[in-house]
């Protein structure tokens, strides 16, 4: 079996102007959107259909702090994306910072879960906690996956940037777009539960 590279992965196809990796990325994002649409639909049903929805029972401080960290990570990741084709050193610095902020988001999430579980607010306690743990848990799993990819780009990116800059740039693009999607989902979670 020959090891054939994927055609039009790094450069656009001449007739359609489409890159295959970007098409695949957007299809994955479409499936992710449908996954979260189902979960948010369940949230709408439970929240509007419930006569007792104790939002104040949730931990408010840590999710708010997490929102600021998430917003900061977006800026850092976008600046890193801009620097990828210009300054590899600057890109690596900003990318590492974005990775650190992502890990901080996961750490704050785990602290928040520990507090909730510690005071007996389990998923089985109320539908509010059930859907909250499911939504934030799925979001955390996807975020962890994205962080793993970001870490891989950080480790392997330097040599790839020298050998094949276009491929490196496309990998970075493929990591930034899902990150932005997860940020949008995070703010939708905040609106769905705390507004």
């Amino acid at each position, binding site marked *: 079996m020959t090891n054939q590279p994927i055609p039009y992965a790094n450069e656009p196809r*001449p007739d359609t102007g489409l890159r295959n990796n970007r098409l695949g990325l957007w299809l994955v994002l479409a499936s992710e959107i*449908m996954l979260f*649409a189902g979960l948010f*639909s369940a949230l*709408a*049903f439970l929240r*509007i259909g*419930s006569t007792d929805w104790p939002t104040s029972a949730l931990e408010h401080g840590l999710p708010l702090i997490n929102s600021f960290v998430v917003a900061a990570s977006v800026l850092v990741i976008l600046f890193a994306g801009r620097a990828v084709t210009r300054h590899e050193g600057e890109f690596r610095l900003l990318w590492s910072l974005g990775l650190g902020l992502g890990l901080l988001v996961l750490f704050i999430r785990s602290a928040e879960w520990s507090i909730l579980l510690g005071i007996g607010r389990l998923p089985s306690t109320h539908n509010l906690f059930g859907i909250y743990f499911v939504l934030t848990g799925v979001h955390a799993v996807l975020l962890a996956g994205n962080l793993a990819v970001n870490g891989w780009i950080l480790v392997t990116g330097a040599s790839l940037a020298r050998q094949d800059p276009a491929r490196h740039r496309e990998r970075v693009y493929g990591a930034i777009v899902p990150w932005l999607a997860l940020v949008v989902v995070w703010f939708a979670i905040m609106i769905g539960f705390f507004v």
Partner: protein
Amino acid sequence: MKRRFRIRRYHAPPGLAVVWLVWPLNAYACPVCFGEPDSSQTRGLQAAILLLGGVAGLLVTGIAAMVFTIRRRAGRNAP
């Protein structure tokens, strides 16, 4: 020649099952099934359907738009 149907002993279990299935029982409908429009459950279900249908509709529209765009571009840039 047409065979005459006779009730046998082994007909009893399926016959009893049919009787059990059609025996009238009380039906307890939730407000959604009952059609109570002002119930919070009905409003919750309507919101959930609207949200899921809206997102699915937007997504399918986006995919269709993408297919048409690719087709148009490919036609324009064909050698």
